[in-house]
Structures are given as C-alpha cells and as structure tokens.
C-alpha cells in the first residue's frame, strides 16, 4: 500500500476507534493483548484500507510492516520512505501521521507497551506532547540526527525511552545536531550496543541515611548536565564552528569517565 493521509472524516474515525480500543483495554485492566480484540484489529485494518477515508499523497513507495521491532530501524525506515515528500508539507500533518499510526498500529500498540496515552498514537498539536507520537518522533529523530539517534531510539517501537524524553524538549538540540553526536559519543556503549545506564536523568531521588526522607540529587555527567554545559558554551564559544571532539574536551571533570581515552 502507498502512503496516504486521512480525510477529515477518516481522522475523526481514527480518533473514535482509538477511544474504543482504549476503553476496551481499560476494561481488561490495561491488558492490551485482551483488550485489543480481533474485532477491533479488523476495524483498524478496514479503516486504513478504506479509500473513502484517506487519500494517496502521491508517493511511489510501497509501505511494509518492518520485521524488526527496533525503534531506531523503524525511524530510519520512515525517514527513507518519506524522503520523496516535501518536509514542510509532512512536518505537522496530523492526518498523515495519524494514518501512518493506524497503518503501523499493531507494532506501536503492542501487548508489551506500558502506556496507552493517546498522544502516542494521535498527533498532538501541543509541543509538550507532540514528541510522544510513536511514528513521527522516530522519523524526526532519525531525520535530524541520523545514526546518533540510536541513543534516543534504543528500544522497541512501542516504547518511549528516557534518553529521548530528557533530550527532545531542549531547544538547543533542535538545530544544533552536533549535540546529538556528542551525546552519542558520551552515552552510547558501542561495545554492548546500548545506552549507558544511569545518565538519562539529571536528578534522582536519594534516600537520606538514617531517615525515610528522599532528596533530589543531581547526577554528575548526566544528559541534563551535558545540555546545561552546551547552553553555557553557546554563550561564550562559537560551538557551531567547533569540532565535536573539541567540545567534548572542554567538558568538566564530572564527564571524565564518559570520555573516550
């Protein structure tokens, strides 16, 4: 099937169907496997294929469901199949992203998913929640950061990871793509092909010894600290013209164990 976008009516139908699916899953105590019934699956397939509820956007690529559940590979695939389209026309195109969401629904609304928030499947127009969309965000991350997006898209297609969550809302990272290359160098364990653990959160709650109290504690060398440093460097250096290794060298002691020697 070629890439399509919902009509107004199709988009409304998708919202309604999603609501029914969500209600059904809730009735089964959030068990997606039971709640997303064969009948609802059939309705989703019919909605995707109904020529009266969506229109062809004029591409040449035949879509297929990826065999792997890797979010990174999924983002790479969506980036490839959308390359022939004008980015300005697809960037915030809710009807396109929602149709893609419906097409790939079985791999993003998976029985192992931990949340069923609508923002993951229905594109939100608020920039606070837009990035939670499980088709658009992998596309966006791969389009902007290429191979370095592996750090943020590590995990399965139905999963919103911590590194991504901590990263995407910071404006400096939007166009200063070198920032992602730096983050990838620091936080991605190339040997084990996975993000290093313990650095995605800027703060953690730590127990106070001898008390039940917890205190918010800064994590040295964390992704949030890197973003702080990049914002600071942007005020005193022309980081856009500097090599990423030069920027990494500037980072303070707290990053030493993350730097490659």
């Amino acid at each position, binding site marked *: 099937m070629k890439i399509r976008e919902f009509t107004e009516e199709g988009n409304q139908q998708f*919202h309604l169907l999603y*609501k029914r699916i*969500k*209600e059904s899953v*809730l009735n089964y105590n*959030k068990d997606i496997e039971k709640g997303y019934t064969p009948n609802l699956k059939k309705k989703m397939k019919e909605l995707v294929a109904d020529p009266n509820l969506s229109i062809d956007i004029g591409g040449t690529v035949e879509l297929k469901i990826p065999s792997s559940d890797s979010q990174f590979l999924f983002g790479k695939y969506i980036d490839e199949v959308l390359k022939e389209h004008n980015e*300005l026309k697809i*960037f*915030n195109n809710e009807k396109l992203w929602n149709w893609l969401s419906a097409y790939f629904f079985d791999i993003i609304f998976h029985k192992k*998913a*931990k*949340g*069923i*928030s*609508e923002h993951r499947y*229905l594109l939100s*127009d*608020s*920039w*606070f*929640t837009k990035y*939670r969309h499980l088709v658009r965000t992998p596309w966006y991350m791969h389009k902007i950061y290429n191979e370095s997006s592996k750090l943020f898209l590590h995990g399965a297609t139905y*999963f*919103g990871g911590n590194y991504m969550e901590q990263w995407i809302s910071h*404006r*400096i990272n*939007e*166009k*200063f793509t070198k920032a992602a290359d730096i983050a990838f160098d620091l936080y991605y364990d190339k040997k084990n092909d996975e993000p290093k653990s313990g650095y995605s959160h800027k703060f953690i709650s730590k127990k106070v010894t001898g008390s039940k109290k917890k205190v918010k504690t800064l994590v040295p060398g964390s992704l949030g600290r890197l973003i702080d440093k990049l914002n600071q460097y*942007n*005020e*005193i*250096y*022309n*980081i*856009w*013209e*500097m*090599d990423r290794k*030069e920027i990494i*060298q*500037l980072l303070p002691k707290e990053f030493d164990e993350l730097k490659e020697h």
Partner: protein
Amino acid sequence: MAQTTIEIFEEKRITYKGKDPDLNISCVKEDETGIVVEVKINLRRHNFGDNCDVFFQTYDNRGAGNKPNKMGKIKELNQEEKNVFQYPISNIKKEDAKFRVIVSEPGNFKDSKVIRLIGKAEIPGFDDENDKSKQKINSLLPTKELDIGTPFMVDMSPNRLPYLVLKRGCNIKYKLDSNSDPVQKSLIYTSAIRAIIEAYLTDHRYEDCIYKKQWFDLISKKTGESVDEFPSNYVSIDDGKTVIESNCKNWIESVTETMVSNLPDSNGKKLIDKHKEANFRNNEITYSEEEG
C-alpha cells in the same frame, strides 16, 4: 579594593537601534514557506581583529537557533561602508523571528582549541514600529497567581495593565501560559476579555486610561472596525433606571468571539476548533496513566 569581576575582553556593544546602529535588520519577504531577512552591517568602529569571523543567526520564539550564516571576516567586511546580506529563513513567521550576530576568533582554553565569542548582539525581533498587528492579546493581559477563592478573576485599575489573576495551586497559570489546554484557555479568556471590555465601557475612571486605548487599538486591528465606531456606553439611564444597551452587549460578544474563539494559532487553526477537538477526544477517559 578586592576585584570581584574579571574583564575578559573590552567590547563595545554591537548596536541594532538608535543613532547609526552597527546593524539594521528588516524583513523583505514573508510567505507560507518563511521569511527573507536583509541585514546591513558595519562594524568598523569596533576593534575586532582582521581575522575574526562574523555570523548571523536566527532563532524562533521558543529559542531554537538555526545554524549561523557566515557573513565574512572582519577585514572583508571593513572594506565596505555598508555590507548588505539577504538570508532566506524557512519555516518561521516574521513575528516569531529573533536574531543574534556573533563575532568569533580561534583561541585556546587550557589544552583545548576553542572558538571564542568576542562580540555579540541579541536582537529580539524586527524593529517595525508601524506594525502593531503582531501585538498579542497576552501582552495586554499578563497572568499572575494569587490565593483567590475563584479559579480566576480580572484585576483592573485605571492606567495599569489588567491582570488575569489565577488561583494558586490549581496549575491554571501553567496551562494558560504554556498554551497547552484549549478548553481552559477559551473559557477563561472569553470571560476575561468580556469583563475587561465591559469595564472599559462602563466605568468612567477608564476614560483616559492608556491601556484602554491600547486594548481598543488592538480590537480595531482584529475586527477591522474604527475605534470611533465603537459603542461608548454599556449601560444607560432610562427613566432613572439603569439599562444595559443590547447593541453594545452584542458588540462585546462579537469582539470576544473574534479575539478568543476565532483566534488562530501558527497553523491557522482557531481556538474554538481546538476546544471542540479537545472535548471530543477527552470525553470520558479521565484517569492518569503511566508512560512507559
């Protein structure tokens, strides 16, 4: 005397307004794809070295900066009295554009090679005094949180900006300022703007209020109606009794509709349509759930 600050470099401020500014930035084209910016620059009066590089950078109103455009080296720029550049900036609206001009030179910090900024100007937007249409409702109605009994109220006083006061601890200010809840936004602003206009048309203490004038100019811009044609009284005295003028009441409703319900976002979507969609989507599923 103890020295509490270190002067790293002597820098004359790069100016972008006032008499003979170093920079002049204007928008020469705007369409649905973006804008074209013209920059005139002359940095001769500064003492930057010949090999310093000069860059022009655009930001959007959320702070995301584009890759800076290189304008050239100081020695090249200083050969001309006025250097003129044009830059097409895609996917940005005129009123959302901010700019930065930076002058940098290579150097060292400890063992690291760096490119240090030695001059900089932050320009908050186009200096277009004739274009008041970009003035937003929010700038004439700032929000603040206080311990009040109701969820919101309008706090007004002559010759002072009206405040939209929001009940502390209810998260309403966050929802409004972040523009993340079209339902609360449309309900609260409909009521607030109605109240402001009613007060301006009723209370004689606002006759010469400078903010009343600013509000009415903004309404005129939005509705296309001349201020002279606005109704002058919301209430009148009829046979010794106070009467609400129905024409004025209808006018207030239509202004509120234009200013709030029909308020378009950056994609041209009206607030009332977003309100409808939000209500439609969130009909009955109201529970918190864990994101994974």
